């Protein structure tokens, strides 16, 4: 092993700027996809509990089909497969406004929406039925029971799994490099290609991901501990 490290490649030339741009793109695509995923997750999670069979079947189909197929396949599907079927005007707009970014964002959001809906559904199901009964016994209406009792508890219960899922989304945004979205992993490869310094470039990219994930996880653990309901959430404060 006679590998000569040359860390200076990371701050000379364009490398630093590329990595920074990659980081910004990763955060942008993840944030937009996260919004889409939460919206779809809440919608699908709620639809799966309504008493109308066709709506329930639709939501179940969405969740079961989209989360059981690799994200990479969805990336290709939404980027290569779908645009040819769009109206001419929409196609033109897409391809002059970075189609790969929007397709990647959409693939990421739809895929994780299906996974989020499972998290949200299990959060609502984890609330003991006695909570409903107690609210009604107190004289609350259904709407009040949801607004004042069920939703506040459900939101606190799902903080840990939602955090986990959000971090998965952030990490999975790296798959968008396959449709040439210039996110962090893509830019890491670019630095590696231009400098021929694989280990240095990969170390930089890996460290950025690690710092991002650890930072988000730390903040969310704080939040979780702050909003924990004693007795309902056993995990908090226990040994890891």
């Amino acid at each position, binding site marked *: *092993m006679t*590998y000569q490290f040359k860390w200076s490649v990371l701050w000379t030339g364009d490398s630093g700027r590329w990595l920074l741009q990659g980081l910004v793109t990763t955060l942008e695509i993840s944030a937009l996809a996260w919004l889409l995923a939460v919206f779809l997750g809440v919608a699908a999670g709620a639809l799966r509990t309504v008493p109308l069979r066709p709506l329930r079947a639709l939501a179940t189909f969405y969740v*079961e*089909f989209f989360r*059981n*197929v*690799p*994200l*990479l*396949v*969805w990336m*290709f*599907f939404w980027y*290569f*497969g*779908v645009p*040819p*079927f769009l109206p001419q005007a929409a196609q033109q707009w897409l391809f002059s406004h970075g189609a790969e970014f929007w397709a990647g964002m959409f693939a990421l959001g739809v895929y994780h929406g299906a996974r989020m809906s499972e998290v949200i559904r299990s959060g609502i199901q984890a609330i003991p039925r006695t909570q409903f009964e107690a609210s009604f016994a107190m004289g609350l209406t259904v709407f009040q029971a949801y607004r004042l009792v069920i939703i506040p508890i459900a939101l606190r219960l799902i903080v840990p799994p939602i955090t986990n899922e959000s*971090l998965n989304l952030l*990490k*999975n*945004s*790296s*798959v968008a*490099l*396959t449709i040439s979205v210039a996110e962090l*992993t893509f830019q*890491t*490869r670019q630095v*590696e290609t231009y400098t021929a310094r*694989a*280990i240095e470039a*990969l170390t930089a*990219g*890996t460290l950025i*991901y*690690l710092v991002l*994930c*650890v930072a988000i996880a730390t903040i969310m653990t704080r939040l979780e501990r702050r909003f924990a309901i004693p007795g309902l959430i056993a995990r908090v404060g226990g040994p*890891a």
Partner: protein
Amino acid sequence: MPDFSVVANNFRFLIVQGFFGIGGFVGGTLRLAVPAIALGFVLRIGIGLARLARARWIRVPATMYVEFFRGVPLVMVIFWFWFIIPQLLGLPIPEYGVALIAFVIFEAAYFGEIVRAGVQSVPRGQVEAATAVGLTGAQTMRYVVLPQALRNMVPSLVTQMIVLFKDTSLASIIGYVDLTKAAQIVNNREIRPFELYLFIAVVYWLCTYSMPRFARRFERAV
């Protein structure tokens, strides 16, 4: 309009070459997924138990291992192995080897967490009872804790196996000809992305959707 004859015309290549890995290319989704799931069981259990060890010098490295791989995208890890292994060994390694090693090492972090949770799910009274009848620590683990823990772990293990199965599609990034790459190859010639990618989505779905059903039958048998 969608025209699915492209799938029928290339069915053999997609399934035989892409899915099973029989043919002129080195590839196959199953040929990667099955060993990736089967190998590394010792590593997974070892990491899970090491996370619970009382000795700091065992627990801390295992925790770092898990936290590291759970904080980094799999794509990044695949690139790491793609560049590092040839450097370390001084000889070129085929895509198959790189992908397999990357999957086993990366997924061990996730499987390790499942093992840890499974072991923690066994009530303390079981350990105390085992100690009371005179079993040593290792015997307690081997005969009392692990058999119960494994049974509790089955659902999470199946979920993780599905994740791993889906993740094998990422091996196509370094040129391994699995189902996804096979569809790309056919698409380059036929330019029918909608039909081809929808078809492989259905193939992946059939596999992942049937896995928990097989597992339930298996679970009942255990």
